[in-house]
């Protein structure tokens, strides 16, 4: 059976409080299970209750199917949960009108089958999965180039008005895993950096691996990230990262 260990971090954009981080992530509570589910979701800043929406998406990924045939009913359940959160308290006129638009989020989920050495991933938007083997980038999914991050991606909406045809916007990828592979899940700002550095011939996953290997990695990562933001190497945005190493 494939062995796996992972580290994760999620942090708000510089200048915002931790509570304002609209990214969310899912990691397995027990890494001994055969099927391990990981997910990240990036709530859109311009919509309200985005943090709650990205949280619902990763939570629903844990126990619900995101396969094309069943996704409609999963999304429907998640949207209803979001509605009940957004209407739970009386809101001022502007918050009410904003909530009526709905929340939007990018999503990326991956299920690892440790017994069969395979993974299934599903994505919408610009959260990206990287697979590294032998210190080379094997796969970048669904974003392929750094320049693609400037475009407006499809996002999952909590409002049924914007859910038409969403099944066709979901992208799926099934791949195999070998011992010593690494899978990285990254929200857009850090994913864009990984692709930009890779395109310049660097191997940026080594920096991430190194940062996350420290005992107090959360502080080290935060300091490193703030430096990169200051140098305009990484966009000032919420950042979420999961690094999964296999043996």
């Amino acid at each position, binding site marked *: 059976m494939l062995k796996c260990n992972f580290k994760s971090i999620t942090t708000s*954009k510089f*200048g915002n409080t931790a509570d304002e981080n609209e990214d969310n992530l899912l990691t397995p509570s027990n890494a001994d299970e055969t099927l391990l589910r990981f997910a990240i979701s990036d709530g859109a*800043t*311009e919509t*309200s*209750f985005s*943090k*709650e929406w990205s949280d619902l998406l990763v939570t629903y990924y844990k126990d619900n199917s995101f396969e094309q045939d069943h996704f409609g009913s999963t999304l429907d359940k998640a949207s209803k949960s979001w509605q009940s959160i*957004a209407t739970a308290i009386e*809101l*001022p*006129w*502007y*918050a009410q*009108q*904003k*909530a009526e*638009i709905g929340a939007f989020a990018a999503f990326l989920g991956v299920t690892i089958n440790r017994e069969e050495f395979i993974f299934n991933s599903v994505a919408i938007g610009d959260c990206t999965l990287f697979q590294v083997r032998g210190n080379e980038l094997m796969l970048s999914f669904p974003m392929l180039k750094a320049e693609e991050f400037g475009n407006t991606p499809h996002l999952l909406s909590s409002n049924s008005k914007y859910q038409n045809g969403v099944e066709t916007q979901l992208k799926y990828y099934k791949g195999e895993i070998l011992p010593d592979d690494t899978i990285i899940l990254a929200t857009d700002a850090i994913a864009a950096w990984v692709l930009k550095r890779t395109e310049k011939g660097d191997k940026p996953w080594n920096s991430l691996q190194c940062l996350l290997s420290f005992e107090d990695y959360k502080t080290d990562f935060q300091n490193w990230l703030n430096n990169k933001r200051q140098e305009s190497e990484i966009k*000032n*945005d919420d950042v979420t990262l999961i690094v999964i190493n296999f043996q």
Partner: protein
Amino acid sequence: MAYTAEISRTNPSCFLFVIDQSGSMSDNYVSVGKPKSEALADVINRMLQQLVIKCAKSEGVRDYYHVGVLGYGANGVKPAFGGALSNKKLVPISEIADNPARIEERTKKVSDGAGGLVDTSIKFPIWFDPTASGGTPMTEAFKQANSIIEDWLSSNPHCFPPVVIHITDGESTDGDPTQEMNRLTRQSSNDGNVILFNLHTNARSTNAISFPGPETTLPDQYAEKLFNGASSLPSFMRNVAAHEFGLSLSDGAKAFVLNGDIDLIITAIEIGTRPSLQLR
């Protein structure tokens, strides 16, 4: 590079509207059968509502912008918000959200989901009421706009540059505003110069000209003054015009409209109030 500063709560930007409230603004727009002053008040109120909603989050409204409305007419030049915001020059967007002078119930046609339209009641907050009387003290209006923007820039030197949107239907009655307009567009933050829109509106909208380049021939000296005073549209605004409104504008296109009807004025305001691409 100019016009790339991030707009955030720690580095907000500002919009200032300078509105002609002279007597001629009571003439009806032929296309909508409503006085220009009323139609424009609706537009400004709707724009404020949209801006509030854009900045609203579940926990409240984030102060990405400060907004002011300056009116000029019979009573000279005055801040034009009503209610609790009376006499305030530039107001954080959260304060605007919490202090409409009143909230009206209006009807709006929406899709019934079966190809038809039904009337639905919507909340329409009012901050700014129409008024139309007296002369056109445009020069004094620009003087005050300069002073408001100067104060803003001294406290916010790194901001995304302020956008000033001036809407008029007539000629200045207190002298030539050219110098004050030039003074305004010379003001700058570290991220670029103030952007001035000069939007001239007309009840009949005959021979309308929008966002012309430098080679344009204008009908009179007065139109030329407004044209010369207006900023050139920065490239990000030309992109908004292209992507959102299908307008292909040349490099030197000016933030200027002549004889615009209410729809053209709305388009220009939309183009001018979209630096939200930088919004975080």
